[in-house]
């Protein structure tokens, strides 16, 4: 039922002379949620950002090894990061809606990529994206209001809708709930669960409970290494590695 969407082989990531990720290999499957957990500074966000080449925007960052999307090397010279990022969307830690209207926030991606032929197409995309993000009913009467005027949880769902609007294949989420309250968090988690049907979802989280709730697979990172990767239920009930066990039982973190 699952197929491999993203494959990483022997990936190292450097920030200048400093090695932030050391020899990570992992397969990420379609149709499920994969969680990256680990203590802060373990490199899980760094690795996530190398999956859609957002590390390119940081001066001095360098990635070696191979990362394949549907078998295509995303760091190959022929791969266009612009097209790649449309296929591999991203949601950030802090909601970052553009200082524009709700409508313009969603319309931005389809417009730059030329996904809508006309205004009617665009309106359809916007309604569908907002519906999928579970935000349509809350904002359909005020699409022209500023996106920044929404509550934190709504802003984050707007950012998810914005990512969905360009029809990505993978959605990367970098601690998407860390700036939200528990109720908003619950809504986002519910949304992630619905979305996984159509996308490969990777979520970085510092909350083990969240990883246990939303993910089917979990990868545990420590000091730039991938320590253990497997079924979430396995990792949390019966970890193979001592380090994973220590982390999960709260011995450090």
């Amino acid at each position, binding site marked *: 039922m699952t197929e491999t969407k993203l494959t990483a082989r022997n990936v190292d990531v450097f920030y200048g002379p400093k090695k932030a990720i050391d020899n990570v290999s992992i397969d990420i499957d379609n149709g499920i949620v994969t969680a990256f957990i680990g203590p802060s500074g373990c490199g899980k966000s760094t690795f996530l950002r190398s999956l*859609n080449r*957002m590390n390119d*925007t940081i*001066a001095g960052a360098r990635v070696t090894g191979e990362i394949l999307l549907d078998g295509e090397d995303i760091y190959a010279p022929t791969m266009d990061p*612009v*097209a*790649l*990022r*449309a*296929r591999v*969307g*991203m949601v*950030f830690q*802090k909601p*970052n*809606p*553009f*200082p*524009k209207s709700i409508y313009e926030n969603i319309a*931005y*991606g389809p417009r*730059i*990529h030329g996904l809508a032929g006309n205004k009617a197409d665009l309106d359809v995309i916007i309604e569908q994206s907002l519906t999928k993000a579970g935000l349509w009913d809350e904002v359909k009467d005020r699409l022209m209001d500023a996106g920044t005027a929404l509550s934190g949880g709504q802003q984050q769902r707007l*950012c998810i809708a*914005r*990512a969905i609007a*360009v029809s990505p294949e993978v959605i990367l989420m970098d601690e998407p709930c860390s700036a939200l309250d528990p109720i908003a968090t619950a809504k986002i988690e519910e949304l992630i669960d619905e979305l996984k049907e159509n996308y490969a979802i990777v979520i970085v989280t510092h909350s083990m409970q969240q990883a246990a709730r939303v993910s089917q697979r979990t990868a545990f990172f420590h000091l730039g290494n991938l320590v253990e990767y497997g079924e979430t239920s396995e990792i949390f009930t019966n970890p193979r590695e001592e380090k994973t066990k220590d982390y999960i039982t709260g011995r450090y973190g």
Partner: protein
Amino acid sequence: MILTGVLLAVIGLGLVGWFAARARARLLYTGRGSMHSMPGYHGWHMALWILVPGLLTWAVWSGIMPGLVNGAVMADPAAAQLPAEEMHRAAILAEAQTLAANPDAVAFDAKSQALAEPMRAAQTRFGFMGAALILIAALAGGGYGFTRVRARFPARTHVERAVLALLLAASLMAILTTFGIVASLLFEAGLFFKDVSPIAFLTGTHWAPGNARGVDIDGNFGAVPLFWGTIYIGAIIAMLVAIPLGLMSAIYLTQYASSTVRKWIKPTLEILAGIPTVVYGYFAALTVAPIIRDFAGSLGMANPSTESALAAGLVMGVMIIPFVSSMADDALAAVPRAMSDGSLALGATRSETIKKVLLPAALPGIVAGVMLAISRAIGETMIVVMAAGASARLSANPFDSMTTVTYQIVQMLTGDQEFNSPKTLSAFALGLVLFVVTLILNIIALRVVKRFREAYE
């Protein structure tokens, strides 16, 4: 002469007082906790008590002594010969003063020769009188100060209070300067508007102060061509150069350039802002203006003038580039990285991100920067004085010679003019307009910048 000596004496007294009080305070010291303040503070306290009364008296006396001396001289029988006319009389008195100070000098006017001796006598008399007063004030203050050197006396608190008063006085200088500017502009412009109607001045389109006489005066002080020249050169031509170049430089430096390139290019660009305006003016007149004149000639214009709005505006624009660039730089840097990350993560290119996300988000800051740049350009003087020309005309042709508010201020106030003519006073009216306009631009811009920064904090 005497007063200068007394000034030195007061300062010397202060020094003596400082040592004396400190020495006495040291004698009082009997052990830890026996004194409220360290001996040095007693020294300062004492010195202040000598210097403040002494110097105040000195300042007051220096202010009133010339009047007293003149009064005494006028009472002298020789003064009865003086002409009644104020200006002439002042000139003779001034000459007598020079003669009194320097007996070898030769008198131009015999009347002043006669006054020199009484002048010298009066100066000596009042000089000694002042010296005595000043010394009494300083010594009295010092005497009081010395009695305060006691173990429990909080000398430090008193000295610190004086320091705070000094600090406050220094910061009030800023208000005083602003007040001075407003008051002097209003006062002199008020004199001007007694002769010329403000409405004629602000709405008239004919500027020819040289012809302004009698009933015709209003018609020749129409400042609109000046305002137009100022706006055309400073706010239009200069900005057409400075905004695109400054903004694009800032975008390239902040978004594309590596940190090494940025480290070298930015200060190099700033050199443009550090070059004195007179150098730009000379460059405009020497190099740019002839090129533009020849260009205008090649376009088929008959008799193109060397001085042109385009030459001045172009060079002024270049001067403003680093200013616009650094304002835009600040505005772009204030937009959180999350904004551009959000756009890049959607697959937007850099330039799409800049044009559609960064620039709109930074717009208030950039607009404020442009307003400050305009305020700077319209107040700029030397470039227009050297390259724009003197002809007040309402023209949209950039090859025409045009004049500006600042040019006319310089024109009206240099050369031999009697000060209180409407022609001279018009400079202050123009200055007032310039001050008000730049003030409004600055206040709005500073406010927008402040609010803009807060929005992203």
